[in-house]
């Protein structure tokens, strides 16, 4: 599989580390329901059959975290962007 890195270009998936679903965001640690929210953030994941936004880290390349839209049924990658700011974090 090859992932088109927005900085480096298309690279073998071997150069990347996979984290998983890009949807969960870190909850407010001071909120009254923080314990439940963190439990969900850390453990609860959907497992969709179809397009999914995922976090991948280009560990052997530009060391950017990427948001990769991948179809879990076909591994087809339809979009890749820098995670976070969308500008490479710089």
């Amino acid at each position, binding site marked *: 599989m090859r992932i088109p890195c927005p*900085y*480096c*270009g298309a*690279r*073998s998936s*071997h*150069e990347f580390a996979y984290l998983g679903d890009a949807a969960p965001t870190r909850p407010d640690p001071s909120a009254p329901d923080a314990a439940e929210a963190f439990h969900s953030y850390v453990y609860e994941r959907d497992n969709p059959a179809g397009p999914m936004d995922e976090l991948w880290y280009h560990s*052997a*390349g*530009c*060391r*950017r975290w990427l948001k990769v839209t991948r179809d879990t049924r076909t591994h087809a990658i339809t979009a890749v962007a*820098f995670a976070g700011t969308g*500008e*490479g*974090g*710089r």
Partner: protein
Amino acid sequence: MSDLLEHIAPTRLVPEGHYGPEGATGVSARAANTSASPLAAATLVARKGATGRLIVACAAAGLPLADAPRSSGGAGLEAVGTGPGRWLVLAEGMSGPDLVARLAGMAQGLAAITDQSDAHLILDICGERARAALEKGVTVDLEPTVFRAGDAATTVVSHVGVTFWQRDGATYRFAVGRSFAPAFLRWLTVSAAEFGFALAGTGRG
């Protein structure tokens, strides 16, 4: 393991010499940062939101930077894009701290600068069959119409992380982590040997 490397400790740089069929030299490699000719290196990392301003500041000081996997030269420095807002900068005939000071002057507080003069083996690889040897480990397309002079890549070769760039039509310059240099040279030597491989600058072993 091949017979070629059987008697060379895996922790040592492959010694300089000729490997492969006699009379043929399809691939040559030379260590560029030897103790005889040191090469200073530093990482230049743009501060948050400062990439554009840093590029302007460095250009004004004579060093054009591309925010892309490209190499560029100016003011006696060679800069290579390794990630968004990140460069590896090399300089000949300068010490690491001198290079850091020089870059700090250029960057005007817009970047973090870190001496990396001891972090790499810098290896220049050239020769008619250099691409044929490199494709045995490089998983980036090196076709000249695709990877052109000045293009750079940070990638992994034979389990070793590297940054390399094409300096001119003929030479690829590789920056390999110091502790990975023996493994990288072992891979390069067995890969290039069939074309005849001349290795220089790595000492006599």
